[in-house]
């Protein structure tokens, strides 16, 4: 009789273990998916910038410093490899873009140019997508971290080799403000 009960208990524990393991796997894959989403949007921003610089050059070729900064920052962001480098380079790129749009404000002809308006919309949308992708990634990391550290799941996590992940954070506090470009 006791044997049956023990056997039943073992089966229950086994089932729980398997279920927890699978859910942890799901969470880890979500985190990876979130990261690749961010990557996709960052790359899209990189691709949009040359066109932006070309369009702006026709009107404000004399504002060389601003334009060159954007080009340099873009190259840096493309070349960055490690996570920390990437974060830093992308933040730098965001700030150079913000300066560029601030300069564009002073040139109503450039502001009203069709090509420019379209690019501005595209870049705004891409910045939003980057923000949303980061939001999704951080949310998933949050869930993974909670799952990995709570009791009793932490046993399964340790045995299965699941670790905490890092948030995609902003290094510079002043850059937490989303670029506001008002027309």
């Amino acid at each position, binding site marked *: 009789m006791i044997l049956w009960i023990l056997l039943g208990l073992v089966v229950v524990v086994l089932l729980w273990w398997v279920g927890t393991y699978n859910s942890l796997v*799901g969470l880890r894959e979500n985190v990876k998916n979130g990261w690749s*989403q961010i990557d996709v949007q960052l790359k899209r921003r990189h691709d949009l910038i040359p066109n932006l610089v070309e369009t702006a050059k*026709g009107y404000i070729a004399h504002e060389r410093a601003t334009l060159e900064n954007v080009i340099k920052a873009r190259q840096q962001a493309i070349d960055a490899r490690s996570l920390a480098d990437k974060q830093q380079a992308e933040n730098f790129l965001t700030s150079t873009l913000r300066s560029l749009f601030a300069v564009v404000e002073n040139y*109503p002809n450039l502001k*009203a140019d069709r090509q420019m308006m*379209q690019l501005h*919309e595209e870049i705004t*949308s891409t910045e939003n*997508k980057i923000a*949303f992708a980061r939001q999704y990634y951080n949310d998933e990391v949050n869930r993974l971290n909670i799952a990995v550290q709570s009791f009793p799941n932490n046993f399964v996590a340790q045995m299965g080799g699941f670790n905490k992940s890092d948030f995609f954070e902003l290094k510079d506090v002043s850059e937490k403000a989303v670029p506001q470009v008002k027309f």
Partner: protein
Amino acid sequence: MPYSFTQIEKDKTRTIGFVFSFLIAIYFLTIWLAVLLAKNYFQAESIDYEYQGFVPLSLSETLMILAIASVVAIGHWLLTQENLIPRLLKLLKAESLNPRDTYHQMFQNIIEEVSVATGGKKMEGVIVPTMVMNAFALADFEGRAVIGITEGLLARLNRRQIEAVVGHEAGHIVSGDCLSTTVTTSLFGLYNGVLNGMTKVLRGEHRVSSRGGGGSFIVFLWLVYALLSVTRLMGLLLKMFISRQREFRADAAAVRLTRDPLSLAEALYAIAYHWRGAGLSSEELEAIFIVNPQFSSLDEQGGLFPDLFSTHSPVEKRLGVLLDMAKADIQTLERSLRNQQKPKETIPEIHGDQGRHPVNEWMIYRDGTWLGPFLLDKIVTLDWLSPTTWVKKKEGNVMPAYEDREIQGIFRTRQGISSVTLDLCPRCRISLSEVYYEGLPVLKCPTCSGVLVPENDVQRIIIREDMGFPERIERVARLIHEGQKAFGQKTKIDLETANLLKCPRCTQYPTRMIHMFYSLIYPIEIDKCIFCGFIWFDRDELEVLQCLVEGARFPEIGREIEK
């Protein structure tokens, strides 16, 4: 997202199971009742009739009815689920987005942004061409998801508010309740047409014949009619199962996605209290909208009956929850909405006479010097122009001619690749140029500043307000507004055929464009082509029309004009 995919799949199976059994149950019940009545009726009618009392149906008969009901239910199910989304979209009169319209592009971008925020759920966008404000979401069993908004909503809300609305609809989709709502509302909503048709037939037949033989046929028809009405009633009852709580959950999902409860509150307020509606008349479909298209006092009440039969939660409650999250109150909300409605600052006139939508001019490089500036139709006549000639738009980059889209068109016409000729201005006989006005491409004459607009686009342009209006437009609008009081005297426009314009697009027809008022309320004189539906506005007429309509919609602005 907290909704894992396994949970959504479980929900789906539950939905299918529940709805399908419900369907079989209804058919079974109605057919069983009908057969019961028929059996007793015909027994009473038969010649060797002996009164035996009310006869119930035997077991074998009941089982047979069950089988028939199942077959009919399967048929009904398959019929309604086939091509579900395209049919619903047609019923809602939704159209796909125009990639050349900047507002539609913005909407498409917003959908993509929210899609990223959900972790990659793919969603499509459609637009309903009506001036009222509303939004809906549809989903089907294959995973296709569609979000639709009205033109009015697109034009009147700012980007953050539209994002909040799209986030709300995405919340419905990702949580799976959009699927159950779509399926249940579509099950019986499509019976309406059949019922209406039958009603007419029955009324006609009834008057025509009452012969003996025709008698039982009519009874049969009435039976079918009763059957269908019962199933339709069941459909309305099914509303009971569309939970009111969906909207709260979707609001919460929207806030989780966009982190902006205030914008959603503003959007809800604007939709519910200002421009409610959906542009359609079917009441079965109302559940899929973010705010019930009809004013329903039932929605605003609590209690058992409203909880059962209402599909939407009270707007006040939803606003309360959101404002709590945003730590704001209703006065702040009203104030920020009113600020949003003020017309935007006027952009200074760049090209003087041409107004705020200048037409393109080019400088062309030849033999060491820059010639120009040329308008497009002058360039057409330059036969020394080759694809490698350097050109420069007035404020643009230097580029070879083949890279410029409009000059490209000239080369194509030369080579006979495209036989499209440039449209000519009906008054000035020079070619029209394409410019963007309120986010839509229209054709404009560089000399007289008249514009040619497709009829459907006029509605959109009227409702959008990219920029404010310069003084002279407001002056004219004021004059017309005052002149409306004396409008009774002026009911006709003097027409002389010789002065009528020819449509620039329909050159093969000898008839001219009709000279008419845009509408009796807005007495702007326009010219309209009866063949292609395009409307020609002379200089400033389109802007005055916009100004007038705006004056009617926002009394504060109207008062400004009247000052």
